């Protein structure tokens, strides 16, 4: 019983982290048709920046470190988008090569700066003690991660669905040329969305720190999962990213716990089913 409950909670927490990663990836792809393969590296860069900030700024708590890393990665992402990605236009092969190259550069830079050993990040003291309920010890920090993901999801939902800026972004997703033709500054929105997505991923890396820590290869471990989430949930759909993240969180966590040898098969099998029968994903829309 303990096993199932703890794994369920682990699944939820991992799903929450996946959402912080995949929501930005999905938004960026939905609006800009840009498969940003550097998104996993943003997550890792955030984790390292947060770890470094906690180490070098005494008294800095995890939440502030996450904010700090989030803004830094958002700024870096914005520069990258303006200076490099913007020039690629809609050339998919160029996007793949360049964003993958950027992710290698970020990974190597992290390795040079912070070395090859994992850097653990402690959860805040008050969340480190497990919550005892019905004789079962629940790791409290896992709940906090899920809460953060829900807050991020709500915030993104309100931004996208309840503001004029959000409607402009959705208009750009629906029909980019038409959006530009009625004066929507799609290009500026692109940059803003890219910053936002990168920032959430960067903050997510820090929030994932107490669970995953910062280590070389974190980017390559996370990116495929984000891709799976987005394909499963539907590109550009916030709800899809949310539901997909938790589905993959469960499949991945239980897969590795129960059938470690088949974890990836279990992960990719539902993918194949989805692509075969619902290529637009669970919540995606087919594009003309």
């Amino acid at each position, binding site marked *: 019983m303990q096993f199932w409950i703890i794994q369920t909670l682990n699944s939820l927490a991992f799903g929450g982290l996946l959402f912080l990663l995949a929501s930005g990836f999905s938004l960026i792809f939905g609006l800009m048709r840009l498969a940003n393969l550097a998104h996993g590296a943003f997550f890792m860069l955030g984790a390292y920046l947060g770890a470094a900030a906690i180490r070098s700024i005494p008294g800095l708590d995890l939440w502030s470190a996450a904010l700090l890393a989030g803004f830094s990665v958002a700024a870096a992402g914005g520069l990258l988008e303006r200076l490099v990605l913007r020039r690629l236009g809609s050339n998919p092969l160029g996007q793949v090569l360049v964003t993958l190259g950027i992710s290698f550069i970020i990974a190597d830079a992290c390795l040079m700066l912070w070395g090859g050993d994992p850097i653990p990040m402690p959860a805040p003291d008050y969340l480190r003690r497990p919550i005892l309920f019905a004789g079962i010890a629940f790791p409290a920090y896992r709940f906090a991660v899920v809460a953060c993901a829900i807050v991020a999801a709500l915030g993104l939902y309100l931004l996208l669905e309840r503001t*004029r800026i959000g*409607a*402009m972004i*959705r*208009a750009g*997703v*629906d*029909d980019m*040329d*038409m*959006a*530009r*033709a*009625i*004066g*929507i*500054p*799609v*290009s500026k929105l692109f940059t803003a969305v890219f910053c936002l997505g990168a920032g959430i991923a960067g903050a997510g890396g820090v929030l994932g720190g107490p669970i995953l820590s910062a280590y070389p290869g974190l980017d390559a471990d996370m990116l495929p999962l984000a891709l799976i989430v987005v394909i499963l949930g539907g590109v550009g759909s916030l709800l899809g990213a949310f539901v997909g993240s938790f589905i993959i969180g469960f499949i991945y966590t239980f897969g590795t716990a129960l059938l470690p040898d088949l974890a990836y098969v279990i992960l990719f099998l539902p993918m194949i089913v989805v692509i075969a029968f619902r290529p637009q994903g669970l919540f995606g*829309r087919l594009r003309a």
Partner: protein
Amino acid sequence: MATDALRIDTLEAYYGDSHVLHGVSFALRAGEVLALLGRNGAGKTTCISSIMGLLPPRSGGIALFGKAIAGLPPEAISHAGVGLVPQGRRVFPSLSVLENLTVARQRAATTDRPWTLERIFELFPPMSARRSQLAGTLSGGEQQMLAIGRALMGNPRVLLLDEPSEGLAPLIVAEVGRTIARLKAEGQSIILVEQNSQLAFSLADHVVILNTGRVTFDGRVSEVVGNEALIAQNLGVIGTHHAA
């Protein structure tokens, strides 16, 4: 002579290597309706896309009230005062009716009576009741009204209408016609692309006919109406496209 609302000068436009517009020139006078006519594939939409900046012309000039806009990005051309009601309507399907209108809102640069949500809903009363409905679920006629309302929310100095009657039932076509007539009466400068020649002739002051990417006629509407030879040669027989 006063500055033209829109002046197009020896426009050359390509899709990749395929040369579609060959030295197209014409001018729209302020407050007038210019009907841009021609058979399927004549280059009408290409012309509209070039003006809007969606297909930047390879060469040639486009001036909006004397200001050069050729080569600007579409959002800048929109802000300069060009409004587009595209062929196929292209409302944002996943946005509500209200959102389709509000995302297009722009401050009026010139008019003393700017378009507002209230005025759009007064122009198209059925729209008001459907304001929270997703635009993708509207009927074709409603989408056309919404596309016109969306363009008006930008308070354009020149309105481009690309086949607003296409695929609509006769009653709705008549309503679209009345709407355009009302906009004209309010002084809106309009370029109207139509295959429904009768509708076009009833609204236009000036007519430009394109044939395979070249202007084959440019004159007042009175010179066209009744000129069976001209019409047969460039448009096919009147009224065959739509029984209006």
